[in-house]
């Protein structure tokens, strides 16, 4: 089966710090891959490289067979790449609903000429996006707070809004950076279910997470990263049972 995201020989260093050391990695449709590794292993950097936030020193990245080389972030998103951020990055001046409204690959008002001269099309696009947003809010249990400001909701809910906003893209490949950090209780189950549902629809997903129980419950497979290298790939059980990896992880 061909992979949705195909990373080959990806290298990047910041000054002396190597964050990606010839990484090869594949994400397959419908599969959830857990990315495990200690702080500073280069997990977020890998996401940044894939998204075009950081330019690689070498290597190639393909999404559904198409090279992403040199493309700006927004074009990668339009090709079906979506992500969440470790530090949330929601839009504080917008309501939960409006945060989501900006998420579709094609936004109602991307082109100013359309705004000025094709109001009917804008209205139709807005209505369509709103229906989609309502549906996603419903599925993630966020409907009751759809009109709240993002600062006024709990941290767990904010994380969930980040996931929900990424879902608006209808992405082919979804990257989640620590969706569970600081989240507890029922939100935990909601995020689990949301991610499983998306994977079931054929999306390739990669989750960075320090919460090992979450990774084990959720992921089909795991990858262990250390100092910019992919050291091992296998079932999450295997990875966490490996004494060598555990040692690297806890730095003992």
């Amino acid at each position, binding site marked *: 089966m061909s992979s949705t995201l195909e990373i080959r020989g990806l290298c990047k260093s910041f000054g002396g710090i190597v964050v990606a050391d010839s990484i090869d990695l594949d994400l397959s449709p419908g599969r959830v891959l857990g990315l495990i590794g200690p702080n500073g292993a280069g997990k977020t950097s890998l996401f940044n490289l894939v998204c075009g936030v950081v330019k690689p020193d070498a290597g190639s990245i393909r999404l559904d067979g198409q090279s992403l080389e040199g493309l700006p*972030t*927004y074009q990668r998103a339009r090709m079906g790449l979506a992500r969440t951020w470790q530090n949330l990055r929601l839009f504080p001046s917008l309501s939960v609903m409006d945060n989501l409204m*900006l998420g579709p690959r094609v936004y109602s008002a991307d082109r100013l000429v359309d705004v000025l001269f094709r109001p009917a099309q804008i209205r139709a696009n807005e209505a369509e996006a709103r229906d989609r947003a309502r549906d996603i809010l419903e599925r993630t249990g966020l409907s009751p707070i759809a009109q709240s400001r993002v600062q006024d909701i709990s941290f767990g809910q904010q994380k969930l809004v980040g996931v929900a906003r990424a879902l608006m893209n209808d992405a082919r490949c979804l990257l989640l950076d620590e969706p569970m950090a600081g989240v507890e209780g029922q939100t935990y189950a909601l995020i689990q279910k949301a991610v499983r549902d998306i994977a079931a629809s054929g999306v390739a997903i990669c989750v960075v997470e320090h919460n090992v129980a979450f990774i084990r419950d959720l992921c089909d497979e795991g990858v262990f990263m250390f100092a910019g290298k992919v050291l091992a790939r296998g079932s999450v059980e295997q990875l966490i049972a490996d004494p060598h990896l555990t040692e690297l992880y806890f730095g003992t």
Partner: protein
Amino acid sequence: MDFVYSILIFIGLFVILASSFDLVIGHCGLISIAHPIFYAIGAYVSAMLSKQSGMPVPLSILCGGVGALLASALVSVPALRVSGDYLLIASIGFQLGLIELAKHFHEIGGAGGLTNIPSFLIKDFGRESYVVLVLALAGVTVLFIRWLTQGPYGRMMTAMRDDELAFSMLGRNAIWIKVAVFAIGSGIAGIAGGLYAHYFRFIEPDQFGLLQSSAVLTMVVVGGMRTTMGPVIGAIVLQLMPQVITFFNLPPSILGPLQGLLFTGLVLFFMFVRPQGLLPAADLWVGRKPLEGAGHSGKEARS
């Protein structure tokens, strides 16, 4: 009476300038203070077209607006491709450079200015008609900007200001939005320039310099950024205040510096005491009615 008309015209023109500048600097978050150069381009293009080729004034004013709109891209496209911060420097360079250039261009009047610009409406319908035209266009501008910023485009500008990286990751092209908004704001300023030229019938390069920039900036800051009425109130207050001062019959040696100090003093005062301006903007963007959909939850959150 002419004196009152002039003040009203100035108020109308500065409402247009301040509102369109607020679109650029407030709503879109583009740091540039070169707004008056697009006012100048509109004024010069319209004046030259009507004077040299006898183009009807309404058409020449429109061409002035289009000229300013296109000229803005000369600054914004190269600058914004580098980075957002670059725009401030590039636009000031453009503003001061173009003013110097105009001073040495005798075909457009040089440093002495361009005289005998064709008038419009006034001969047939009196000065009142022009006052009405300018004030009506000021109203249209304010309503247009409110419409734009409360619609999906405004939602997009708000998100872009909040977090440009997260914004790009959703598939939105920030550079193009900035170029487009800068162009629209500049085009509106260009129209105001044409309106100015055909009323006062004289323009000179020096009047579109940094003093003018600081005046427009002061209006927006004092009135309140990112509000519909803030720039309007700012424009009115700052146009009337110098007139009020002249009533005190102070000697000209004091009057001149006093008016200059007014802008600086007001900006400093507001920055320290009331940075949000007379009318503070809401910290949550709320779209206009039809955008919000018919959902029941819409109203609860507002309360």
